[in-house]
């Protein structure tokens, strides 16, 4: 009898223990609460003007024609904070500063630094934050359209899974 009661108690406790972590997630009408701080980007150092020159073919040398294949790039960094009790995901970033904007991660692979797009979104944990910083997560700006000098600012728009659309002012500065 006592054995049975003990068994039941243990089984009951186990059930409670297993169910407990799932309960808040199921019941909460939780929401993410996203804010951005310390947004900055690398200068492009007069590279864009040079690139424009090539694109318009204003200089004839073959060297310059070849260079038109390349694009001027930069990267933006920031801290994405989530004060809400539900996680969220940064799905995409838009802006008119560059031809293509992607969320990337730099990581070490076979002893080399390699950059990859985070195609399925960057998770921002509930009550937590994700720091986008050099040699880690960053927003890659491919084909920057105007030269970025230290002190300049430009706008990016961050699109989250929750539907939140958050504008960010990014300041250009030396790292």
């Amino acid at each position: 009898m006592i054995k049975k009661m003990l068994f039941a108690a243990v089984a009951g406790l186990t059930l409670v223990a297993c169910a407990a972590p799932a309960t808040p997630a199921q019941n909460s009408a939780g929401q993410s609460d996203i804010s951005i701080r310390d947004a900055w980007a690398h200068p492009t150092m007069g590279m864009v003007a040079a690139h424009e020159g090539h694109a318009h073919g204003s200089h004839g040398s073959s060297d310059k024609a070849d260079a038109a294949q390349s694009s001027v790039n930069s990267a933006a960094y920031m801290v994405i904070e989530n004060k809400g009790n539900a996680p969220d995901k940064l799905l995409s970033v838009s802006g008119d500063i560059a031809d293509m904007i992607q969320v990337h991660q730099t990581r070490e692979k076979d002893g080399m630094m390699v950059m990859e797009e985070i195609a399925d979104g960057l998770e921002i944990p509930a009550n937590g934050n994700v720091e986008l910083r050099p040699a880690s997560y960053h927003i890659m700006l491919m084909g920057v359209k105007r030269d970025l000098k230290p002190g300049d600012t430009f706008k990016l728009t961050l699109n989250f899974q929750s539907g939140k659309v958050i504008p960010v002012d990014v300041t250009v500065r030396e790292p």
Partner: protein
Amino acid sequence: MNMRSDGFKVFLGVLGGMVAIVVFGLLLSYAPELARAPVPTPTPGGVAISRYRTISNATLTDHDNRPMSLGALRGKPTLIAFGYTFCPDVCPLTMADLRRVKRELGEAGDRVNFVFITVDPQRDTPEVIRRYVKAFDPAFIGLTGDEATLKKLIYEFDGLFEKQPPQSGNPNSYIVAHTSFIYLLDAQGQWRMKYSFGTPVEVIARDVQAMLQESARRG
């Protein structure tokens, strides 16, 4: 009596030790963060190359589209970074670090070569490289070459680079994976130090300073 007392002390000591171990173990199991906490983050520094290696005298092309042999860099300590201008994250930071090393050295910085070598000769033409390196410092040297020569050269530094397939439809938006150290060569062209990404510039500047003094002593 004495014997017995000693034996009892030993017994007590052993028992005490066992209790301490058990308590410590319990503490660790109840506070897993305690068990993980005491691993200190090492301060990144330079790695000395145990057997100095003389880097080959490969002929590359400089940012003014002129041939330049690496041997021409001898006579001054030389800091070398491999990278490419399309790289938006690690490469500009490495270049900015080189600029900060030069600032840290003050006037002595003029007695040092600062060299950027591309791992992307296809897109980084001499003109693109010139704009890039001069934006960081007018004295910086940028070099390119054919891919085989560049691969052989980075291999001499135990490094490598590998063009990745383009992710998007644009064939010109490819990434080049590469080892990203800063290398320090002495005035004789021997590779002496390497610095991993993020090494404090003061550490690099101090080593360069020491090398300059070493050169001065040699006369």
